[in-house]
């Protein structure tokens, strides 16, 4: 049996705002095997960043994890206290490359010190040792070790992104979450960063959880894909299945909306309407107001989770039919 590095079960993260409860992540489950990479795709506001923050137990208030389990390496972190998460889990087992990494660095400290900081606090290294170690990681991400003495403003966008990646790796976590790691970068630099992530994934055997709205980036890196819509995972499966035989109407529409550089220049499709307000999502299937195939039942009852294959599941009434008929 394969060993799971990450198991998420029925995770719910809600934001308690004055205007009502925003269900950012609503009943999300998935498992990740060791060394496997996951891509999470979805439009802005679908809850993908909230999911990422939940995995680190870093949900900003008024958000809170209200239910479910996050099991990392056999330990459920939802039940742990903050100090325990900080000393045992965060950055050691799971770390993160934040969105807009250019602004994630502190402008008044040298790159080297910022990189070395986790080593000093978590592993008790002296400052000198820690900086030596930091140099190794800078080399690993393709930067010159001399950069330790530089300040962030002296580096280009691509270099800063590399530094932030090195920072996420420095305590050797098994899981690295990358939240839109390339959105602010130019295509050439983006390709270089993706190559770097691919290389690290192979050499260090880490699991990367890649969060992006751009499906073409996921195709470059992930083994499995989770497509999120309005706080729920609507389709989950291996990369090839999702890209070649997408089942959920939302996934299909997303794939058709990407302008492609090569191949035929067919007319692009798009998804009409806007994502729902997560304070009070539409009844039944949350996607039904924008769905081409919406049926009566979609408007009334939430769709079932249908396993088309052991590793490919979809949340949609289109595929629920057979199952329902056989039951009744």
């Amino acid at each position, binding site marked *: 049996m394969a060993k799971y590095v990450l198991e998420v079960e029925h995770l719910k993260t809600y934001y308690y705002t004055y205007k009502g409860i925003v269900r950012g992540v609503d009943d999300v489950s998935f498992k990740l095997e060791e060394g496997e990479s996951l891509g999470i795709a979805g*439009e*802005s506001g679908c809850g993908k960043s909230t999911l990422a923050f939940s995995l680190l137990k870093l949900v900003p208030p008024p958000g809170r994890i209200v239910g479910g389990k996050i099991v990392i390496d056999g330990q459920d972190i939802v039940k742990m206290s903050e100090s325990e998460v900080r000393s045992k889990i965060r950055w050691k087992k799971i770390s993160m490359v934040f969105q807009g990494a250019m602004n994630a660095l502190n402008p008044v400290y040298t790159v080297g010190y910022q990189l070395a900081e986790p080593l000093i606090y978590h592993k008790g290294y002296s400052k000198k040792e820690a900086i030596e170690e930091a140099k190794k990681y800078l080399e690993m991400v393709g930067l010159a070790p001399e950069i330790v003495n530089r300040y962030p403003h002296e580096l*280009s966008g*691509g*270099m800063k992104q590399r530094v932030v990646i090195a920072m996420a790796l420095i305590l050797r976590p098994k899981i690295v979450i990358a939240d839109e790691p390339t959105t602010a970068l*130019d*295509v*050439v*630099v*983006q*390709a*270089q960063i*993706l*190559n770097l992530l*691919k*290389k690290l994934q192979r050499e260090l055997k880490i699991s990367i959880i890649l969060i992006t*709205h*751009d*499906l*073409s*980036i996921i*195709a*470059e*890196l*992930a*083994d499995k894909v989770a497509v999120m819509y309005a706080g729920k995972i609507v389709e989950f499966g291996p*990369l*090839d299945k999702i*890209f*070649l035989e997408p089942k959920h109407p939302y996934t299909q*529409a*997303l*794939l058709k*909306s*990407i*302008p*492609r*550089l*090569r191949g035929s*220049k067919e007319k*692009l*499709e*798009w*998804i*009409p309407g*806007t*994502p729902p307000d997560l304070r009070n999502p539409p009844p039944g299937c949350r996607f039904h107001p924008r769905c081409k195939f919406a049926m009566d039942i979609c408007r009334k009852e939430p769709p079932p989770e249908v396993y088309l294959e052991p590793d490919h599941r979809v949340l949609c009434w289109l595929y629920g039919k057979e199952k329902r008929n056989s039951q009744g």
Partner: protein
Amino acid sequence: MSKQQLKLPPRDEVLKAIEKKVGEKLLLYAYKLRKWFPIRRGIKEVLTRQPPRFVRAVDTITFYIKEGETFCLVGESGCGKTTTGRTLIRLLEPTGGYIFYKARPETIKEIKELQKNVYVKDGFIDLTSVNAKKFKPLRKELQIIFQDPYGSLNPRFKIKDILEEPLLVHGIGETLEEREKIVLKALEDVKLTPPEEFAYRYPHMLSGGQRQRVGIARAVILNPRFIVADEPVSMLDVSIRAEILELMNELKRKYGLTYLFITHDLAVARYICDRIAVMYLGKIVEVASADELIDNPLHPYTKALIAAVPEPDPELRYKFKEVPIKGEVPSAAAIPPGCRFHPRCVALDQHPELREQCTTVEPDLIEYENEHYVACWLYRRGQS
């Protein structure tokens, strides 16, 4: 004065040559357009009388745009594509060069009444010869859609007020009712229906895609001919990009618009544009029709850009992407001598015989094949 000023041939000659080449369809021609931003000098530099330094954001570029086409400027951030777009419609003052634009006869008449010494010939007006304070009649024809739909709409204005403002400025629509009618029609044009409902909302009540539609409505409400679209979809989700692009195409057909479309995404450019110009560090390095440029790129930089675009193909994750380019973009304040791409060029390593030429002389943009222009020494052997 210094190198900043260019010696330009007389306007008549330039205009005649391009009219002969492009013919009837010519709408806009930028000739040796230049926008340099001065860098503030330190006290030491002033005292030692160092020459002033400049960021050469747009460095002597020449291109034409035909009526009814979508012309794309593609390049990495900082290559000067936005500056080019803004300089073209005089939101920034050009440092040098000519911009010939075929304006409507009534606009030319209006301008001539305001200012005597404008250059007008064959229906073309040189935008650089118009005094900035007398530019207003032309603003109706030259519009812009901004990149950021969140920052470009005044949060204290209702959508109706945002769209009404240009009408008031230009004195269109005498009564409130008349103006309201125009505003509602513009909202309908960009498919914000029902328009009555959207007109009284504030920008924060709209999604990103809807805001960008307001941005588009604001650009088309004065019935322009030429619109600079500055990365109109880069801040939007992939799922609604296609919708906005399709809307822009539809408006183009309906109102006979011409776009200068600025983007960093070649896939988007291929989808919406007729011709693409690739910019690198303030210079156009290649121009061709969209399909020709992507299927048959000539310049090493274009090749690298195309190789770098991610594709939604699951096979790719087993491979490393090879992007034939070295290093990083140099600063626009310290542009390398010769071909400005040479420090990053991979082709240069394969052709050592060109090294001297590439590192000392800047290549011009030449027509390599029919309407496929390239600025690279590789394609000029025996010609220089």
